[in-house]
């Protein structure tokens, strides 16, 4: 219970800090729109035949390009929360010189990861909901009602994201210059999860990696419920894969994080960046 209270306090503190930077919050919606969604929708328009996405229908199982992409952005944003919001928060604490004092409190180090992720997820889910609204109103995406059926998958994927946060946070703590590491791994994670295209078009090795990511299954369940796309695995096996991989990610993440923490304490480099 004290750890839950601590996680909530950390999340509250993060949200309070975020409130001071309104432009950053606007970018939660604006950045995916300009950097990914609008260029992707316009690229899709270049392939339209008599106003229909015949090619996309063949490869993805739906002609609703906007729906496909906006749902991808929604799940991709939550992945971003694990990478930027949670893992990179350690870097910001390091730079502000507050990481050492925070780690001297009786709160367990692992709780910090969960607290940061919680705050970031709140922002991303709100931003994602705004994005879905924009998709429905301005881009003709059709997904709302049916997408609710995939809510259990969206809740379940958060377990995997906690694991990813631990893994990336370990990398951030050990590196002195983590921007490129977080930026590039987040991009690869998002692309491999199928946020921008169906995993059927991925090259062999990338497809194998995609099938090891919990987000791939969460997004696949969401799309098959909302848009009627062909699922990667049949029936409940997708939920099983999602839960199993999520659990595995948490175990691997916590183990890696504990090792990274031990190494930092031995080398005394917690305050260095």
């Amino acid at each position, binding site marked *: 219970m004290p750890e839950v209270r601590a996680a909530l306090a950390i999340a509250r503190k993060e949200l309070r800090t975020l409130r001071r930077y309104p432009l950053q919050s606007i970018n939660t919606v604006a950045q995916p729109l300009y950097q990914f969604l609008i260029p992707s929708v316009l*690229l899709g328009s270049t392939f339209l035949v008599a106003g229909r996405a015949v090619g996309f229908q063949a490869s993805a199982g739906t002609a609703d390009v906007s729906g496909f992409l906006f749902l991808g952005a929604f799940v991709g944003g939550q992945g971003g929360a694990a990478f930027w919001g949670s893992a990179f928060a350690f870097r910001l604490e390091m730079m502000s010189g507050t990481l050492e004092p925070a780690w001297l409190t009786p709160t367990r180090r692992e709780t910090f990861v969960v607290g940061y992720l919680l705050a970031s997820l709140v922002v991303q889910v709100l931003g994602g909901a705004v994005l879905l609204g924009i998709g429905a109103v301005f881009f003709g995406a059709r997904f709302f009602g049916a997408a609710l059926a995939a809510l259990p998958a969206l809740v379940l994927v958060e377990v995997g994201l906690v694991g990813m946060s631990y893994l990336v946070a370990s990398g951030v703590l050990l590196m002195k210059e983590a921007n490129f590491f977080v930026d590039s791994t987040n991009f690869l994670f998002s692309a491999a999860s199928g946020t921008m295209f169906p995993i059927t078009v991925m090259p062999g090795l990338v497809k194998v990696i995609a099938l090891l990511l919990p987000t791939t299954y969460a997004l696949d369940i969401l799309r098959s419920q909302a848009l009627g796309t062909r699922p990667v695995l049949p029936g409940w096996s997708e939920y099983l894969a999602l839960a199993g991989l999520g659990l595995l990610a948490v175990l691997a993440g916590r183990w890696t994080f504990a090792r990274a923490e031990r190494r930092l304490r031995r080398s005394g480099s917690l305050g260095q960046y």
Partner: protein
Amino acid sequence: MTAAMLDLRALSAAALKEVWVIRRYPALWAGMLFWPVLLPAVYVLQAHAYAGGDPRATAAFLSRSGTSQIAGFIFLGWSVYMWLSMALWGPGTALRQQQVQGQLEAVFLTPASRAAVLFGPVVAYLALTLWMLFVVGVALRLAFGVTLGAGEAARALAVVVASTPAIYGIGALFSSAVLRWREVNGLVQVVRGLFTVFCGMTYPIVILPGWAQHVAYSLPPTYVIGDFRLVLLRGANLAQVAPDLLILLGSGALLCILAAVAFRATERYARGGGSLVQF
């Protein structure tokens, strides 16, 4: 020594200092290998999903873009995005960096020309740009079999030369804006977002509605992307793209003048309010 020679020395010193700084960050160099290749590669995969192996979809792309080389089309569009990103994050934020590090006051106290301070980083980042374009060329050749001959490369270089004042004029203008409003990240996103949405990085301009095409043709990067695609994918010669190059040179000159005027105004504002050291 004449004033012009002194200015040139100050410019080269400012550029050299920026090269030293860039050299200290190996992640920047790693990024120069990663982003120009993987960012467009993801969009190439997306384009394959849109094509879906249907010849009608591929024919639709050919008729709208004028080329069947999907990978080349997308890589060249994103290379200009990368170039703009470098101009905004590099020279565009150089003054702000100096302000944050507390060096800007010292620099302004030197007798060096303000033009050297404003445009010095540009020279340094030009080398990085050429490296990025080289990486894009190699990736296109090795991963997608797009062969670019010496003639095409020379014509592309001419486009780079004609575009340089415009791209870095945007960077320099941005630099003054950042110094005035003291906000980097948000401003980069807004400016880069405008270019990404309108300039045709992933799509041909013809698919935009009329009003958006007017916006697109008022932005220099639209011409840079169009000309890269024309000379590298459709074999156009320099005479065919000459009107575009003239527009680029003209807008480049205008942007550089605007940047110098904006810089002078920002400096006056900062001196008046004593905000040169605030951040």
